[in-house]
């Protein structure tokens, strides 16, 4: 049941991408997440996407906050620099890194706690600033690492399960981002790599802030009230000592979402999520329509997936600030320091 027993990509000769690397070259350290955790499937999809895009690993920069989800950067692209920072502050740290070196490909991985609670203000502003990066929220509706408190995001599946609306309005990162003018907004499901990989690839190629919300179930804690294997059960003080520190063996929840339709996916604890995919005629270039679609799907108790909105015409943080094409860190000191003569002239104004 430890992460060690997880299947690894086999060692047999693997196909190489355009720059001669195999998918293994995009892997990272062994995961220490729970077996079956949705986050590991996101890792796999990231590995695949980076491989398929033939991105040189050293050009990748991996950023995260704190949480189970925020451990993800350890598990892919070991040839890239990674930064596992503090809880909720990944967005500004990534903005700074991106400001310094625009030639790196910035990938931020966060959780619903990290991004929608403590980091909510920063997410909002990273969107406004259009920091060029892939920003993944591994959304499980709970705080995994601190053992199962409710997070601010959608109570995944609770609508489908209990047929009742969530009373405390959850934060839907997709609708939030759309209403804030985000330039790329998508959603995937950790259990459908076939759909997730193209979404991640599109996001990686977006010239601006690309938000990808990935529903990524936590097999250990979840917020389906009433489920006997749920958070409520574990937390219950009367039963505390029976199964404390016990994680039942679980498998990843996988499902192939249909093209243009809905599907109900059952989670390990019996909870069910109704995923929708976008209809053929959907136009992801119309923000108003995207917002409308997302809101309506929500009312239907359906979680829409796919690339919901793209605006390819925007200018990213560097274009908005007219920085040079080469990264700021590459500018020679001579281009930065005006020198002694200029200093002398400058001071003539202070006499």
């Amino acid at each position: 049941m430890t992460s060690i027993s997880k299947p690894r990509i086999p060692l047999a000769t693997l196909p190489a991408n355009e720059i001669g690397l195999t998918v293994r070259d995009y892997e990272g350290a062994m995961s220490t997440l729970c077996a079956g955790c949705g986050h590991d499937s996101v890792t796999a999809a990231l590995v695949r996407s980076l491989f398929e895009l033939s991105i040189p690993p050293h050009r990748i920069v991996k950023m995260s906050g704190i949480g189970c989800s925020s451990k993800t950067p350890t598990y892919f692209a070991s040839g890239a620099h990674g930064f596992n920072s503090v809880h909720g502050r990944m967005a500004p740290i990534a903005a700074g890194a991106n400001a310094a070196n625009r030639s790196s490909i910035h990938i931020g991985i966060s959780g619903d706690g990290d991004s929608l609670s403590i980091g909510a203000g920063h997410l909002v502003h990273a969107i406004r600033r259009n920091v060029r990066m892939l920003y993944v929220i591994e959304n499980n509706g709970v705080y995994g690492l601190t053992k199962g408190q409710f997070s601010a995001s959608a109570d995944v599946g609770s609508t489908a399960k209990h047929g009742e609306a969530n009373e405390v309005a959850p934060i839907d990162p997709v609708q939030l981002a759309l209403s804030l003018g985000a330039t790329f907004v998508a959603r995937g499901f950790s259990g459908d790599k076939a759909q997730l990989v193209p979404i991640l690839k599109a996001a990686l190629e977006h010239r601006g802030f690309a938000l990808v919300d990935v529903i990524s179930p936590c097999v250990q804690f979840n917020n389906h009230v009433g489920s006997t294997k749920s958070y409520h059960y574990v937390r219950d003080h009367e039963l505390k000592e029976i199964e404390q520190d016990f994680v039942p063996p679980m498998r990843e929840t996988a499902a192939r979402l249909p093209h243009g339709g809905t599907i109900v996916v059952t989670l390990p604890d019996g909870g069910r999520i109704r995923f929708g995919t976008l209809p053929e005629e959907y136009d992801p270039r119309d923000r108003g329509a995207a917002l409308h679609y997302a809101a309506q799907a929500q009312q239907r108790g359906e979680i829409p997936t796919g690339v919901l909105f793209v605006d390819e015409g925007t200018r990213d943080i560097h274009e908005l600030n007219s920085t040079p094409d080469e990264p700021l860190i590459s500018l020679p000191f001579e281009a930065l320091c005006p020198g002694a003569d200029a200093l002398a002239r400058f001071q003539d104004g202070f006499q």
Partner: protein
Amino acid sequence: MKTEEKAQRGEPDEPALPKRRGLNEFALKFATVNGTGSASANNLILRSIFRMGVPVSGKNLFPSNIQGLPTWYEIRVSGEGNTSRAAEFDLMVAMNGQTYASDVAAVSPGGYLLYDSSWPLPKLLLRPEINFLGIPLAKLIGEIFSDSRQRILMKNIAYAGAVAALVGIDQEVILELLSERFGSRKSLFDANREALQLGFDYAESHFACPLPFRLETMAGNDGKILIDGNTATAMGCLYAGATVAAWYPITPATSVAEKFRSLCERYRRVEETTANGAREIRNNFLILQAEDELAAIGMVIGASWAGARAFTSTSGPGISLMNEQIGLAYYTEIPAVIVDVQRAGPSTGMPTRVQQADIMACAYASHGDTKHLLLFPADPKECFEMAVLSFDLAERFQTPVMLLSDLDIGMNDWVIPRLEWDDSYRPDRGRVLGPAELEQIEEFFRYDDADAEFVTPRTLPGFSERGAYFTRGSGHDRFGRYTEDAEGYQQVVDRLAAKHRAASAHMPPPVVKRHPGARFAVITVGSCESAVIEAIGYFAARDLQLDYLRVRGFPFSSEISSFIEDHERCFVVEQNRDAQLRSLLILEAGAPAGNLVPILSYGGLPLTAVQVIEGIETAWKDEA
């Protein structure tokens, strides 16, 4: 503190400084209403005096408000070079009806008060021991200017004209300044000159000009400039090659970032004309106005980690908010330059008043075991130099460096020697391994292979897979691997402590003045310097030699410890309630508490020599 109150009211203090009212020795105070544009007129006077070669200082005492509240401006003129805040005022320009009473009270006996006699001054305000000079400013200005906006502005210039006549400002100098300001905009220039002349002429013809205390051109300011600390700090950041700045507005730090932007636009903006004739701007900098201070420090950390020289500027509340991430930078060993322009008080406190009260908060910022590098400039020249140094230190020691300026230094104009720059300067980027160096080593580990100063090499993202590593604020060993192991953890934090100690050799040495055989000394920091020097002069004139030391950096060098050891008593002068510098000296310079006598001023106004003198004399009495 009684002194402070008396000083503010201008009451003579026992034991005061010997009265030096006279040639090139006096102090002016302007009482106005904020938002009325008086700053421009006051600055004109300050700058004229500066141009006449007379040592001078200007202190702006302004409210945390945009319009309508009382505001004061103080100018101290001292041919002898004593330009700390004046304790008494010889000429009060009382332009604010709201504060007449206290302004009248603040004039020292024998002094003068200039007021707008368009309306009569209430009888009960008259003080026999001071001289009242009335000019019907509003009336006169109203006769010349019709636009209400111009009337408000020109009234200020008119009182400046009157003051010029009263204290003997060279007319040519002041006109030259006006023409520099308005250059080609002739109508503006003419209006200003007219208003100036109006005040000047009225004073000349109605009062005995110049007054007994007055100006005379001298050569005290050769090779000097008049500049505020925040501009100098911004200039230092520019010259150090900072490319990324992230900040959130806060008084009194705002102008650091705003100046940095205007300097960058001036010196780092390249305009190119593209093939199709379009003009393209290329900014060799990126300034991020963050959503808050938590974001600002995060951006600095991210940018520094990626290899840029980056900084943020803030004040006390911002430091508090940055606490968690200051710890992150400390523990992950990421350079970060933080300019803290200190203001007064806990919480929001008094945003437009001065203290040095973030010393402890900065030295140990963040939970857990942390210690940081601090720099303490005393004037704009040091702001410039230490701003540059802070980047070198931050990168050399891969750690946060806090530049602790304050509102007095940062927002007031100071006369300082011209800034100098050595074109051979190259940034000390510290230990950064590039791809070529990485090829030479077998395997790169982020926190291994410490040098003599306990610094380990880092690599920048984007260059080579061989240099890839994982930065984490969670427990890590010297290989950079995640750890919860006691030894792996301790090795790293022990090295951090050693690195902090090693940095002391690179901090700017203290400023020290010793007299053979002196048993007592004064230790101080930052903007307290000029008042302390003046106080030392006062005691020297009474045959009591006090040695002097000004702390300029933390960790402390051994020179500081031995200075303290060498004296029976050291008076530690600083502007906060809790004797924070003294605390840090006790803890980190091994100073015995009993030898360090706190002399504190924390009312929020720049320090006066009288406060220092009184403080030392009282402490002495207490010991006797």
